[in-house]
């Protein structure tokens, strides 16, 4: 019986991973321009970026998913539950990643910019060769912590019908009435996925962190 329950819930693992990976990728990518806007010399971009960040972060993820899937999805936009979940969580991740990048920029010693200026590196090379490699190293631990948090947040995608772990667990418990076992197993699965992520982060952090100037 337990094995059957496990099998049923495990069917959700690929969807949980898919929502996490796609949403995090969207966030990590869109977070960069959003962060760059906050450092823009044009006030309009700075205000726009802080407004976007505020809106994305102040509204609960569940409301965002309902807004996209039931709201926009109802007649305005052809969207599948998976797409809606990835887009919603991805946009929220972008706002959070932008803040993480912003903190990382502040953590880099100003002497690095000055040395890059004095060596006559162009704006592009200053960023690509000097700042970005260090920025990624500083942002890594917080970024990874956020990714683990995001993994757990994907459970809300079950509410719009993405058949990930929480969705499978809910339906298995409805079918078998072994709710305690079912949710215990679901919980264990989340732990099993988080642990390697946490280990990998710690390993990468130890190996990369030393080479950042602060």
């Amino acid at each position, binding site marked *: 019986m337990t094995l059957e329950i496990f099998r049923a819930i495990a069917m959700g693992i690929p969807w949980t991973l898919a929502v996490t990976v796609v949403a995090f990728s969207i966030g990590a990518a869109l977070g960069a321009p959003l962060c760059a806007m906050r450092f823009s010399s044009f006030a309009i971009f700075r205000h726009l970026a802080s407004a976007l960040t505020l809106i994305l972060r102040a509204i609960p993820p569940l409301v965002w998913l309902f807004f996209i899937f039931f709201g926009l999805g109802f007649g305005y936009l052809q969207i599948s539950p998976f797409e809606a979940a990835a887009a919603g969580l991805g946009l929220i991740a972008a706002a959070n990643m932008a803040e993480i990048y912003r903190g990382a920029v502040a953590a880099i*010693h100003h*002497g*690095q910019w*000055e*040395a890059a*200026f*004095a*060596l*006559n*590196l*162009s704006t592009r*090379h200053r960023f690509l*060769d*000097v700042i970005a*490699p*260090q920025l990624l*190293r500083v942002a890594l631990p917080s970024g990874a912590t956020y990714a683990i948090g995001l993994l757990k947040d994907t459970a809300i995608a079950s509410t719009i019908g993405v058949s990930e772990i929480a969705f499978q667990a809910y339906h298995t418990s409805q079918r078998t009435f072994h709710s305690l076992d079912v949710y215990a197993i679901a919980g264990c699965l989340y732990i099993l996925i988080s642990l390697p992520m946490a280990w990998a982060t710690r390993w990468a952090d130890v190996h990369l962190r*030393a*080479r*950042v*100037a602060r």
Partner: protein
Amino acid sequence: MSANPVLEGEASTRRASEEPLLRLDAVHKRYGAFEAVAGVDLKVKPGEVVAIIGPSGSGKSTLLRCINQLEPPTSGRVVVGDVVIDADREPSRRELMQLRRSVGMVFQSFNLFPHLTVLRNVSLAQERVMGRSRKQADEVSQQLLARVGLADKANQYPNRCSGGQQQRIAIARALALEPQLMLFDEPTSALDPELGLEVLAVIRELAENGMTMIVVTHEMHFAESVSDRVIVMADGRIVEEGPSAQVMRNPTSERAKRFLRAVAER
């Protein structure tokens, strides 16, 4: 250079006829109501070594940073070779590139790139700015590292090097771009005395080889023995200026006397 009286006469006539490499006209730098640099005029001829001394907060470092526009002056003019930067108008990107191309800078806090090996630290700007191939750049870097006595550190990361070694690497990095003028912003202030000496030895060697340099420093002996000219700054102004020995031993202005007396009493 000044040890030989025959050469000295010759050198000074040669120098007198030469255009200055650097000229500052009435350079001011204000931060709100505070005036960090309050009108400095300065000429530095090719091959000259100028030491700037003075109390903390006297504007020495700010003045140095005005030269390569790391701090754009609020008013006044900076001329390096053919490049004229007037504070009245925004300099074009090209002018800034030209200016920084001929001016190298070494910082108090070294500012090496921690994510790159020592060799790559010296090579990076050669490739990006001068268009050298990686092979060419690395060859030049090896030679420069050998010149500052650190050939064996090429493949280490900066955090494996002592402060003195890091500063010598930073000097090699700046020299790699073949600057005409080198700016040193308190190059030994973050180092203990022994490590400072190895950095000063490198700067001394550059001076002997005719590099034009401006050195902001608290090392009085070094200022006197290496530089041709010493400038004393206080409150954003030059309060004393002249041949090293004269300024250090017989200053004329009250402010310079007070500063040098305080230094001597320590």
